[in-house]
């Protein structure tokens, strides 16, 4: 009987490469929460996120031979799942992408400092749970740009490449995403204090 307590991730990866079901299950158990947390941010509901995660793990087990051990395995895993989530968004792209490419300059002229202050104030009050709800209420493209830029830490140039849009579109989408988030969070807070 094989025990996985304190088993190094490298051994689990090796087991997965040998198609050992127990190693695959252990990998799944170890990373399910983290991958759900990532996919959940890109989806509008938990069920969609779960579907992506399930498909993602099947893909990971199929493609694990392509992980050559260079770099972080968790990083590789995250890329697979972010790509899975984005694939879904790309398929829906035409349905929600309605951005005027030229209108981003005005947004960028606004006081970044003032917006940051506002965001910080709101963040303090809202907490993670409500923030997730607010992010899930964004359109898929706004959500993708927000996640990639703010949480995954990509630059606008990288976001643009990933989502196959222009850099200007990425910037204006982020601006609009944040604007909508602020609005939604304020509403949530008003409702909370009213009750």
């Amino acid at each position, binding site marked *: *009987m094989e025990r996985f307590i304190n088993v190094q991730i490298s051994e689990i990866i090796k087991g997965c490469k040998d198609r050992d079901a127990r190693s695959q299950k252990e990998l*799944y158990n170890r990373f*399910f*929460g983290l991958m759900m947390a990532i996919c*959940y*941010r890109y989806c509008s509901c938990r069920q969609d996120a779960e579907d992506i*995660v*399930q498909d993602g793990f*099947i893909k990971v087990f199929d493609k694990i031979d392509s992980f050559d051990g260079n770099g972080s395995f968790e990083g590789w895993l995250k890329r697979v799942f972010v790509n899975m989530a984005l694939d879904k968004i790309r398929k829906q792209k035409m349905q929600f992408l309605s951005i005027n490419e030229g209108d981003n300059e005005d947004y960028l002229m606004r006081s970044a400092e003032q917006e940051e202050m506002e965001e910080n104030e709101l963040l303090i009050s809202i907490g*993670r749970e409500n923030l997730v709800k607010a992010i899930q209420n964004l359109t898929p493209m706004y959500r993708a740009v927000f996640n990639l830029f703010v949480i995954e830490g990509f630059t606008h140039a990288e976001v643009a490449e990933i989502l196959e849009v222009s850099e200007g579109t990425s910037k204006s989408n982020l601006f609009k995403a944040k604007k909508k988030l602020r609005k939604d969070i304020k509403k949530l807070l008003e409702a909370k204090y009213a009750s």
Partner: protein
Amino acid sequence: MQADKNIKNLFDGFENEFRKGDWSAIESKVLDNNRRYLLSKSKFMIGAAFGMVACIALGLVHFGTTTFNDKQQVEVTESNVALNTPLEESKTQIFSVSDILAAEEPSKTEELSTTNSVLHTGNSLDIKKQELIVLNEEAFIPINEKLNPQLPKFTMHKTTYCLGEKLEFISDSKSTESLSFNWNNKRMTLDEFKQFRLSSAGNTAFEVLENGKIIQQVNVICQAPMARIGYKKNYDIDNPYVQFSAMNSLNSADYEWYIDGESIASADEFEYTFASKGMYSVKMVVRSSAGCKDSSVKSVRILRAYNLMATTVYNPEVGKWLPLGLKKEGVSFRLRIIDQAGKTVFTSIDLNNEWDGSTAENMKVSNGDLFYWVAQVTDVNGKINEYGNSLLINSELE
């Protein structure tokens, strides 16, 4: 942007909010894929092996007639047959092998005869037969039984779990259908038990039943650490700091503190001096002894940062001068006093070396002279900050 950083930090530890996934939902697909993968791999291996065998066979045909002795080849073949044949069928083969052994390896036959003579009496050939059969029986113990001794019917993989985690156990496949479990006066089937998740911290006991009869009691511990940040402000001018603590956290054994994503401390409490005004994100990650994790983030707005409180007017006849804030323990500094011509009249890196109003040329300053001071301070966090202001000499100041 700080706000972006705060949002990012807010999502650290988010994974804890998700329970473990349902492996059974993808298990069959994964196993199918594994089978397909291994099959395709084995086909490739068989193909490769076949190719190799064919090459070797061709080589043997070429070299065999001149290199090997025919009799030796026959003996090898017979031995192989004996080892791979079921017991009853192999007996005859064994005799043929033993005959060969007796004929060609007298020392081995002698050894067997010696053993048999101690254990048995009678016809030596019969004893030899019996001994060989016994040896052969041992050789036919199924290999799985040799490698895997009888597993217990039910074994917990581990006994300490995190909140929401499924139980991990191994059960003997032959008895799974007859297994059931008692928990909290409720009966669970094996399938229900597989889906069971610990939902509250503490000790939990299960009874394992086989065919309705209790065969085992299992105790597991569920750990659910809870991160709660506590803080206390200290407003001393000489020593302003915030003391952060995990004192309200529950079930925690290890602590990690981060300020704006930078690891700061690993104790249950620490003091921190914020060197400049602004918004900071303070995050604490706690872990239980079993590694269960929880985290909490607190945003801190610093309205008045650590700075050097210093008088702007100074009378050398009353005493010496040094900015007050430099007196904080653990702070190193470099102070310069500059006259209006831009010339440095005094420098100090030592708290005991305070300015007495004299210049580098041992000249005393005069009433109404204006100076500037600049201090580069390395704070308790190792950050270098620069402060400065004007300083007016006023001999009327008491």
